[in-house]
């Protein structure tokens, strides 16, 4: 099969047209009742960290700042950042994530008004306080932490 540069170019343009609008919008995805189970299966056999935050939570900004630096140093760090705000407020969330260098990272926002069920899907023992973080071992046993997650605390709770 001979390569046709024009055809390749057209295919490239078509791909850009298909993907760009989403990529330009933001990296925020819907967090629904099944999302956490799906995330866990994506990390099957692998350790990962979950950080929960909200627009209205001042201590969360300190944690987001640390996580933003962490991702800049190590883009492959297995981090799941979830905002407990309604995804209707995504513009505000993007603005804040941008300020902490996290706008390039895939993150999630609550996309179901039955927030009690979403919280339960993450952790039935969580009271809803923020920031809240989880440290999943490769076998997905986990420890939880309430309050600001510092780099030191992260190193202590996530030795991977």
């Amino acid at each position, binding site marked *: 099969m001979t390569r046709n540069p024009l055809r390749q170019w057209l295919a490239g343009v078509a791909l850009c047209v298909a993907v760009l609008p989403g990529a330009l919008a933001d990296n925020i995805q819907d967090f629904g009742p099944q999302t956490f189970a799906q995330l866990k299966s994506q990390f099957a056999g692998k350790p990962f960290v979950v950080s929960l935050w*909200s*627009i*209205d*939570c*001042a*201590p*969360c900004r300190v944690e987001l700042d640390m996580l933003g630096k962490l991702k800049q140093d190590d883009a492959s760090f297995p981090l799941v950042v979830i905002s407990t705000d309604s995804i209707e407020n995504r513009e*505000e969330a993007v*603005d*804040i994530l941008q300020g902490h260098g996290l706008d390039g990272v895939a993150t999630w926002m609550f996309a*179901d*008004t*039955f*927030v*009690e*069920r979403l*919280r*339960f899907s993450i952790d*039935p*023992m*969580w*009271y*809803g*306080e*923020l*920031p*809240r973080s989880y440290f999943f071992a490769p076998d997905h046993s986990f420890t939880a932490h*309430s*309050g*600001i997650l510092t780099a030191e605390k992260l190193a202590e709770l996530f030795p991977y």
Partner: protein
Amino acid sequence: MPMSLTIFERICLGLLLLVPALSAPVQAQSCEALRAAQGQDLISVHCGGAPSAAFDADGHLWVAFVLDKHVYVSRSDDRGVSFSAPVQVNAEPEDAEFNGENRPKIVVAADGAVLLSWTTKTSNQFTGEIRFSRSVDGGRSFAMPRTVNDDGLHTGHRFDSMFLTPSGKLYLTWIDKRDMEATLARNEAYPGAAIYYTVSEDLGASFMPNVRVSHNSCECCRIAMAPHGQDNVAILWRQIFDEHIRDHAIAVLSPQGVVSELSRATVDDWHIDACPHHGPTMVPAAQDGQYHMSWFSAGNLHSGIHYARYDLATDTSANLIKVDGMPGAGHPSLAVHGDTLYLVWKGFDGTASLLQMMHSVDDGRSWSAPRTLMTTLQGSDHPLLITSPSGVFLSWSSEEHGYVFKELSND
């Protein structure tokens, strides 16, 4: 005769419309169903965000809610079965907050003045203004809202609470970050925020200068208010003790701006640098200077929703119990009517949200078993209890049931 047939048809049509109204009590409806029937731009108490309610002296119910950057007020003359067309409070749209801990507050004075406060968000950096408006023409129109915090700073003034004393002193209290800003500007640490208040002696025509109640409060929990004598109020809020412990403090405020020394109302030992978004509730107990309190903590000593009766004279609490220790349980509301004390809160059983209630007829010394008032499989607001001379009522908004207002009985 075509004419008589038309009348006959009209009568039949009228009868058809009447039958369901006579045969079944009118139920609250979901906003979704109402909008499907009446149009997507319907403004209704059933569609409003974070409603709160109050009775006036004549027993009419008034409900305030937020919709599309406006605060609205609607009146019910049949205890929440039907509501008047909502009246817009702020003509200019503003970012009035409406969530569990931030909602418009409404009080109706003895002379019929309808008094409202709310928090307007001014950025996504935790800034806001405490707003006030009132109607002196029976809720037909509202004055242009004014900002009550008097520092002129673009900083945090949020989580307002409002209380009108029996003697007509109108108190507003809120969480304020002016001292935090000033302290940080000196490169010094300032845990949390501060509590400020103001009083109006003329039902909101004017307010005295803002007064600080306390430094180092938690930043994001509603403040509970209750009467203390004729003119004063007691307030209960989440306070930061020893820089990291977020338990509760209580203080008495006077209309002259005098603040009592604060007392530690709960000792839960909750070490946390986080936002619980979970404020307390408080009503007066049988004896002067004693208060029924219910609150949430995830502390080392107390975890879950708790109840206790606090005595300001001795700075001690009595009859402390764990109300509900399930992690999904939260947002208690207390009310007292006659000899009966009611406590309502929201729980989650893994599938449904449950509204739970228990009551005490001996000033909180013993309690009934909890019972479930309502459940929902959709999103819902915190429950609130509203008291009138005739009883205690549940005020609750949910996607499934719309706005529900119903009398509680202790049987």
